[in-house]
C-alpha cells in the first residue's frame, strides 16, 4: 500500500464516519419529530371549511378567528333534541358569564330540506345572530368527517312518504379565539354547564 493509497483510505474512512454520523443524526431526528408531532403539545386547530350561511353568503370558519365559536350539527325537521339544544345555547349566550362576542354556528345534517330560507326562518326562533350553514353533500361531507359527525337517514313509518329523520352526532364543538378546538359538550348538557363551557373554552 503506497502512502497515497493509505491517505486515500483514511480519507474514505473519515468520510464514511462523517456520513454515518450525519445519517444517524437524521434517522434519530425523524422519529423525534414524529413523536413530538404525535404527542407534543399542539394547537389542535379546528378544521377550516367554507359553507353557505342563511343569507346565501359564503361563510369561512377561519374568518371568525379572534372570536369564540360553538359548532352544533343538526337539522330543522328535528322537533326534539335540536331545538332543545338551540334553546339552551340561546339562553347560555345571554348569560353575563358568557363571552359577549361568541358565535353559534348550526351546521345542517339535512341539506336536502334545510335551504338557506328554511334555516333563516328557523334560527330566528332562537337568536338572529346564530349562523345557519348549509351546502351540498359534496361540500358538507368533508366537514362532517373532519368533525367526526356521523349522519344517517332514518325512515319514519308514519306520515308523508318523503318523511325521514336524521340520526346525527350531537356534540357541541367549542372553538377558542385562537381557532383551536378547546373542548366538547353534548346536546343534553344543561344550560349552566353550557355557560361554563362558553367561558372556559373561549
Amino acid at each position: 500500500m503506497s502512502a497515497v493509497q493509505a491517505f486515500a483510505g483514511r480519507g474514505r474512512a473519515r468520510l464514511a464516519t462523517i456520513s454515518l454520523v450525519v445519517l444517524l443524526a437524521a434517522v434519530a431526528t425523524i422519529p423525534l419529530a414524529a413523536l413530538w408531532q404525535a404527542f407534543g403539545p399542539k394547537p389542535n386547530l379546528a378544521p377550516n371549511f367554507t359553507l353557505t350561511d342563511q343569507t346565501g353568503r359564503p361563510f369561512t370558519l377561519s374568518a371568525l378567528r379572534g372570536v369564540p365559536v360553538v359548532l352544533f350539527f343538526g337539522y330543522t325537521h328535528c322537533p326534539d333534541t335540536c331545538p332543545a339544544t338551540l334553546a339552551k345555547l340561546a339562553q347560555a349566550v345571554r348569560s353575563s358569564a358568557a363571552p359577549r362576542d361568541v358565535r353559534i354556528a348550526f351546521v345542517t345534517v339535512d341539506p336536502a330540506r334545510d335551504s338557506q330560507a328554511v334555516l333563516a326562518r328557523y334560527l330566528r326562533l332562537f337568536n338572529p345572530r346564530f349562523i345557519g350553514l348549509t351546502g351540498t353533500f359534496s361540500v358538507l361531507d368533508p366537514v362532517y368527517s373532519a368533525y367526526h359527525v356521523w349522519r344517517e337517514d332514518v325512515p319514519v313509518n308514519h306520515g308523508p312518504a318523503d318523511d325521514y329523520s336524521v340520526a346525527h352526532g350531537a356534540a357541541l364543538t367549542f372553538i377558542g379565539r385562537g381557532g383551536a378546538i378547546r373542548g366538547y359538550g353534548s346536546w343534553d348538557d344543561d344550560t349552566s354547564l353550557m355557560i361554563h363551557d362558553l367561558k372556559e373554552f373561549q
Partner: protein
Amino acid sequence: MKRSITLAIALAIALSAAGVARAAGSPISVSDAWSRPATGTAVVYATLRNAGSAPDRLIGATSPIATHVGLHQSYETKMSGMSMSGGSTGGGSMGNMPMPGGMVGMRSVSSIPVPPGGSTMLKPGGYHLMVDLRHDLKAGDTIPLRLHFANAGWLAVTVPVKPLP
C-alpha cells in the same frame, strides 16, 4: 241530576284551569303539556297518567293545525367504546381530549305505553309528539290536540306554546 251536572262542569273547569285534561270517566289524564315556538315542525311534551288498573297506550294524535302528528322516541347511541382518535378521518388531531361520541336519532313508534297506576313522561330526549305544522307557532299560541288511547279513547288537550327560557 242538575246538581251533578253542575258539579261535573265545575270539576271540568277546575281541571282545565290546572292544565289537566281528562275525559269524563276515563282513568287517563294528561298534564304539563307544552311546546316551543317552531317553524315547520313542532314538538309536544306532556305527562300521561293512568289512574286505572289496566295498561293503556297512546296510539295516535291529530290536530287541525297539523298535516300529521307522529308518535316519536328520541334515542342516543353512546359511542364511548369507539375510538375517536383511531378513525381514518384524521382524528389524531384530537389529542387526548375526550369527545362525546353520542349520536342522537329519532324513531317513530306505533304506541306509547302508559302503565296502570303510573305515568309516562313525554320529554326532551325521550318520547314526544312530532307535529308537522300548517303554520308557524310563536310563544302564547296553542296547539289543539286530540290524543287517541287504545282503551280510554279520545282525549282533547290544548297545548300552550311556551316562550323559550
